[in-house]
């Protein structure tokens, strides 16, 4: 179980539970989990922050001549992984990355989120996040390599014999609950082989840690069940893609500051400013919330994924939706992120955008009540509806132009992220795709 552990408690648990290995986990700039595995005998050294790693081997971290970096574990994140063998148990600690001089490494995404959360805390706010993660479970081929095939014929909320991934999804939920997650919902999604698991909102740093743990659990338990799990946003043309809707709220002194009983929509001025900040900066941060070339294959009309920059109460075609519950449950749902993103950077960008809206008292445009997907170009123009960037390249250019977002990421992360993503875009755009061959090889 996750909980508040002291150093002595962790040492005792490692000994009593016969934990053999501990994974010191951290996340790189592109959202990939990395780890240094240590034996149980090293636990005290680990808790002293003395475990070193070569940062130059992590893309986007440091150069070879300054490569010694240290992993400082967060004691609250200690857990024994429930899907590992019960003989030879494996524990884990989520770590922050530090420089040899004891200062936080500015390229550590977890640190990026911690710094903007501190800024929010100085304003009296706690930033809470509740993610809704979708993913696909696919079969593997005779060599064990992933395919996009599924034996699953089920659809949205289906259950029973049709839902072949149900037992895997159930096993994932049980494992997550053993790790202290509060699972709010779990169900089959629209596309064959697609599933969703929602966990209860929590403070943003913990929510980001949870998403990294969640992805590890899903991938591991899928493999254990002979399936391949993917968080790729759009693995199958013509089917719904996988999003990661992010429900956000700000609290102050235990009270949700987005709620105002006297407002016609029961939203406070802070909520409206936050919405305006998100809408203003979404072109700038979509490269972070939707980081892959493939992410933009999902953000197309016809699949409930947003394409236009708009907000609405209840309307699922909008980029930002305000779900019905109010009071302490008042929240904003940002619907563009996908689960391939780095959750630390994504939440940091969202918070920075929202805080900018609050600090500048920005006003959002009128909410859109109709189905945006059914509006023609002139109707959208009449409402001044802008589109989201439609490629990774245009999203990166928009990021570079948005000072609020580049400031929150910091110069190091921004530079390395942009470099990496432009390289990715360049590799993609120079590939000759199956579509091109099918459409041009014979005709020309």
């Amino acid at each position, binding site marked *: 179980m996750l909980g508040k552990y002291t150093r002595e408690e962790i040492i005792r648990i490692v000994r009593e539970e016969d934990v053999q290995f501990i994974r010191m986990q951290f996340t790189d700039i592109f959202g990939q989990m990395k780890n240094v595995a240590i034996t149980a005998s090293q636990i005290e050294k680990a808790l002293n922050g003395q475990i070193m790693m070569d940062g130059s081997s992590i893309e986007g971290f440091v150069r070879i001549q300054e490569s010694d970096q240290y992993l400082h574990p967060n004691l609250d994140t200690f857990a024994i992984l429930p899907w590992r063998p019960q003989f030879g148990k494996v524990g884990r600690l989520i770590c922050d990355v530090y420089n040899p001089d004891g200062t936080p490494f500015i390229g550590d995404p977890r640190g990026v989120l911690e710094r903007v959360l501190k800024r929010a805390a100085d304003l009296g706010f706690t930033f809470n996040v509740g993610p809704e993660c979708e993913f696909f479970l696919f*079969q*593997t081929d005779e060599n064990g390599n992933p395919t996009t095939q599924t034996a699953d014929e089920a659809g949205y909320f289906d259950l029973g014999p049709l839902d072949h991934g149900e037992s895997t999804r159930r096993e994932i939920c049980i494992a997550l609950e053993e790790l202290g997650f509060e699972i709010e919902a779990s169900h089959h999604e629209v596309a064959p082989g697609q599933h969703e698991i929602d966990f209860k909102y929590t403070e943003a740093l913990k929510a980001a840690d949870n998403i990294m743990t969640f992805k590890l659990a899903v991938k591991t338990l899928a493999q254990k069940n*002979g399936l391949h799990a993917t968080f790729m946003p759009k693995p199958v043309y013509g089917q719904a893609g996988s999003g990661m809707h992010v429900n956000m709220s700000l609290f102050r002194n235990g009270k949700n500051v987005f709620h105002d009983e006297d407002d016609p929509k029961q939203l406070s001025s802070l909520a409206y400013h936050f919405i305006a900040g998100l809408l203003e900066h979404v072109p700038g941060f979509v490269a972070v919330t939707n980081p892959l070339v493939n992410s933009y294959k999902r953000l197309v009309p016809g699949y409930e994924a947003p394409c236009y920059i708009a907000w609405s109460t209840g309307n699922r075609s909008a980029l930002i939706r305000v779900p019905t519950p109010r009071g302490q449950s008042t929240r904003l749902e940002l619907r563009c992120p996908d689960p391939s993103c780095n959750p630390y950077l994504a939440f940091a960008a969202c918070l920075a955008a929202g805080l900018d809206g609050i600090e500048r008292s920005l006003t959002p445009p009128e909410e859109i009540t109709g189905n945006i997907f059914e509006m023609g170009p002139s109707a959208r123009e009449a409402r001044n509806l802008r589109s989201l960037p439609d490629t990774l390249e245009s999203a990166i250019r928009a990021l570079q132009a948005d000072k609020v977002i580049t400031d929150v990421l910091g110069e190091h992360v921004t530079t390395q992220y942009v470099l990496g993503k432009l390289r990715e875009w360049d590799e993609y755009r120079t590939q000759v795709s199956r579509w091109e061959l099918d459409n041009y090889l014979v005709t020309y």
Partner: protein
Amino acid sequence: MQHTDRIIVAFANPEAQRRIVRILEQDGCVPAGVFYSGADVIRAVRKLGSAIVICGFKLRDMTATELALSLKSSAVFLAVTSPVNLDFCEGENLFKLSTPVSRADFFSTLQVLRQMEERTLHPPVTRRREDEQKLVLHAKQLLMDVNRMTEDEAHRFLQKRSMDTGLRMVETARLIVESYTH
């Protein structure tokens, strides 16, 4: 032949796979599945409910040990491989046979595995005697007729009363029948 529909053959090497399938088929045994990958085996066992898996020490995507662990509660394994590779095979549900294997050893081991699979993975279901079954049905019918319960509600009522009082369901049914018929 018993359980011919629940033997799975899984080897990374096609020749090794063919050899085992041939031996089984010569004995009148048709495998339920023939695979190269552990993932395929896992999916097949989940569909079958339980199985005997005859495999090499390593499949194309995982080791026999990893596979046996994944299917600890639903399959028993027979790893057939060289003596050196057998050292890499471990598991409570994993038996080993070293190549070259004699037909006698192979089939006698398979027989042991069949019994294990039957007992461990398919424990006997306790069945009520016919007269007890009739009593329970009678009690349900009374609850449905007199108390306007549906069949589901009557069943749940009997279950809950049994749990609350510590009596077997058939005893609870007897009490209900006696109450309504006196």
